[in-house]
């Protein structure tokens, strides 16, 4: 097991580049999630690391072995990687045990019996590890989708790879199974100490499973950092929008405070820092802040917009709505948050349910419109007048992005 390093990777087809100078680094034993919309190049990146696609330029290093560099392309079978594709891709003509053993050196020559026994033992161990002990004689057609993925993972781990690459491994599963398998895969990779890369288009999956997350768009890595860094300090407005729940408002900068439709809010400047460089946890570096009066783009998380009843006296709290880490609540006390500006009146004009929480569209008294995420219990009917405030410090980006 070892670390993985990708530097300046360019992959192209004819004149279009699918990957443009991509650099990432995964320390030994860590799991990196690559997330981005479809067509952003994330699967191509994974396939290039696997050696299934040739790079045009750049380097890939697994441990201390250079597998891709100037004019050199190590064949996939020589890279010591494990590959778990979206459809599990179990060999339909082989049993579960034979699938897992597919990559193990075949038992021939002297000491054949002993080797065969060792092989069988290893297969057993891996099947138990993925929770499928006793399934060895089954055929892939007899497995459920989740079981098939577990076998695929066991098969990838069997040849003791340096890096395991997972290409949307939960994509074909239903949501419940997905969450369950996600947790067990994460545990398994940790327990085995495997360096891993997982590709997904689901930002929630990426943030929940990985040690670190790389956000890709149009063939470039926009940000690479811990889930918290990516969520709290998105390097660009695009990343913020992709990670979810972002409300963008135009504003002007006044020395650490922005003036926008939500009033005057305490803000932090996020410069368009150089992102994606290898190994750097690209927590956007606060570069030179703008001059006073300069236009900026203000990012407010819709979950950090809090609503209060304007006419209600303090104490008659709507705190029936319970707050969790990311979803906001309708709460009297929120109006007193230091970071927030003065109360702003708004009216609920639309409600859309998304399951455990809901999105309110608010028409601000000063003419703007914003979205706020509330828990189902804190839901307000259309037409309700509310006081709007922001519970945390907001982020400011250069205008025009």
């Amino acid at each position, binding site marked *: 097991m070892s670390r993985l390093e990708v530097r300046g990777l360019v992959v*192209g087809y004819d004149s279009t580049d699918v990957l443009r100078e991509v650099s990432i680094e995964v320390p030994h034993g860590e799991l990196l999630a690559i997330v981005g919309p479809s067509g952003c190049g994330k699967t*191509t990146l994974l*396939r290039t690391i696997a050696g299934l696609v040739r790079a045009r330029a750049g380097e890939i290093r697994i441990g201390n072995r250079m597998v891709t560099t100037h004019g050199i392309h190590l064949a*996939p*079978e020589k*890279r010591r990687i494990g*590959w778990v594709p979206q459809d599990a*891709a179990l060999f339909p*003509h082989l049993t579960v045990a034979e699938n897992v053993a597919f990559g193990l050196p075949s038992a021939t020559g002297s000491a054949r019996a002993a080797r065969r026994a060792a092989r069988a033992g290893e297969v057993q161990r891996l099947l138990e590890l993925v929770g499928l002990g006793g399934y060895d004689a089954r055929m892939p057609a007899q497995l459920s989708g989740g079981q098939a993925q577990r076998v695929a993972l066991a098969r990838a781990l069997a040849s003791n790879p340096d890096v395991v690459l997972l290409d949307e491994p939960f994509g074909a599963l239903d949501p419940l199974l997905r969450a369950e398998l996600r947790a067990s895969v994460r545990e398994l990779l940790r327990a085995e100490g495997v360096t891993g890369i997982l590709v997904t288009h689901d930002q929630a999956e990426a943030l929940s499973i990985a040690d670190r997350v790389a956000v890709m768009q149009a063939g470039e890595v926009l940000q690479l950092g811990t889930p918290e860094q990516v969520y709290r300090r998105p390097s660009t407005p695009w990343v913020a929008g992709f990670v979810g729940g972002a409300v963008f408002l135009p504003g002007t900068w006044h020395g650490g405070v922005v003036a926008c439709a939500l009033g005057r809010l305490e803000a932090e400047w996020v410069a368009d820092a150089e992102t994606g460089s290898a190994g750097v946890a690209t927590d956007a570096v606060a570069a030179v802040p703008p001059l006073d009066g300069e236009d900026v783009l203000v990012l407010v998380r819709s979950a950090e917009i809090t609503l209060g009843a304007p006419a209600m006296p303090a104490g008659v709290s709507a705190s029936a709505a319970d707050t969790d880490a990311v979803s906001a609540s309708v709460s009297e006390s929120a109006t007193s948050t230091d970071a927030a500006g003065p109360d702003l009146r708004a009216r609920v004009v639309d409600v859309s349910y998304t399951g455990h929480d809901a999105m309110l569209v608010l028409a601000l008294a000063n003419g703007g419109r914003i979205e706020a995420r509330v828990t189902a219990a804190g839901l307000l009917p259309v037409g309700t007048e509310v006081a709007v405030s922001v519970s945390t410090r907001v982020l400011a980006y250069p205008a025009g992005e």
Partner: protein
Amino acid sequence: MRDVQRRPPRILIGAAVLACALAAIPLVYLVVRVGGAGWEEIVAVFDRPRVPQLIANTVLLAASVTLAAVVLGVPTAVVLARTRVPARALWAVLAALPLAMPSYLAAYGWLAALPWMHGFWAAWFVLTLVGVPYVTLPVAAALRASTTSLDDVARSLGRGPIGAFRVGTWPQIKPATLAGALLVCLYTLSDFGGVALFRFPVLTTAIQQAYGASFNRDYAAILATLLVSLAVAVVVAEQVVRGRAARRMGAAAGPVRQRLIRLGRFTAPAIGLLVAVPLLAVGVPVAVLVARLFEAETLRVFDPAELLAAAGNTLLLAAGGALVALALALPIGVLAGRYRGRMVRVIESAGSLPLGLPGIVVGLSLVFFSLAVVPALYQTAFVLAFAYGVLFMPKAIGGIRSATAQVPRSLEDVSRTLGHGQVRTWWLVTARLARPGIAAAALLVAVTAMKELPATLLLRPTGTDTLATELWSRTDVAAYGSAAPYAVALIVVAAVPAFLLSQARGVPEAAA
């Protein structure tokens, strides 16, 4: 996901190009031979009064058979695929049955019953019957894959059922209809046995006669070139028209929705349509032949040893042909099933070239070629097996292509990452999983080769008789009784595997 780059291995391209080159030998050598004959001789051929007549007969027969096959085949396909006709599965099998019937066998059966049949109408009748499935099967397949919701929309906008079919379904099945019509047309152009039995003079029979007369083989070569040119013209015309039709359709929109028609009072006529073709193409000739088999005169002249020898030769030669076809088709089929791109398309089209080569032309050209280039192989089983291989290579390519394409690519990816190289992966995974399809393709070629007549007549080693040639030599002298056992044996060896094949793989694919 579209792959960024996936170039076929060089060795695969090399093998595919080599296979195309080998398959092109008959055509290329024919052109070489005709070129050697000289211009005056070529011009002189057209001065013979018979030649325009032969061309006219050939074109007339091909056009009328194609038209009739489309007129019968499309409604049959609609009944099969779009209506709630009782016992649908049974009709689907019956509809494919005439494919197992070589034209000369059907013609022979009808002649045995009605000895006065001859000329254009007789040839038209029998060739239409055995040609209809070439239209029915692809059109039925296209209908099953097409949606009826366009018809529904057209109905809701005020069109009647026929009008709605024309704007809704017809554009979706037009490419398949054209493809089927092409197959019927090529089949008719290259048919030898059926037309010869009914004594209707066309190019194929004239080639055979000119070759048999043997004092002027250039004449045969020029006629063969003429025939190939006709076939190529038909192929090109079909490609142009079909390309246009397919482009206009674009990709299938949305999920396939199918509403089956209740036949009501049309049930009886519909079943009549479904019964008619297999009954007349297969039922009547087979019944007549079997009846003949048990006549006293037949049993008196019947020599079981001779029959067994012919059957053995037929099986061996067909197996050889299947091996050659498999060897030629494997690189092309794998390439076409796995990779995209212009070069792949060109190679695949080159590989399907023999579709336009009549058996008599391949036979004739390989006679010339083996005599001039490899005399040691002249009149050996090897050349005949090679002829079969070239003739039926397109069938094998189709089978191998779809069998290979069915193996998910991710399985190969996984195998590569698990430490197996490209070749080993192909062997362990792709070939292993494509094996049933590849075997079926080989069997299909063997079955078709067993029935082949004109190339077999020209190329068979002296003294080697197959079921087809034995049958032929007896029908020629109107010895119908003694031919019956060979006819029945042919039906058994050719039809039984074809039937099994259609059961195993779904009718349209296997039979076509």
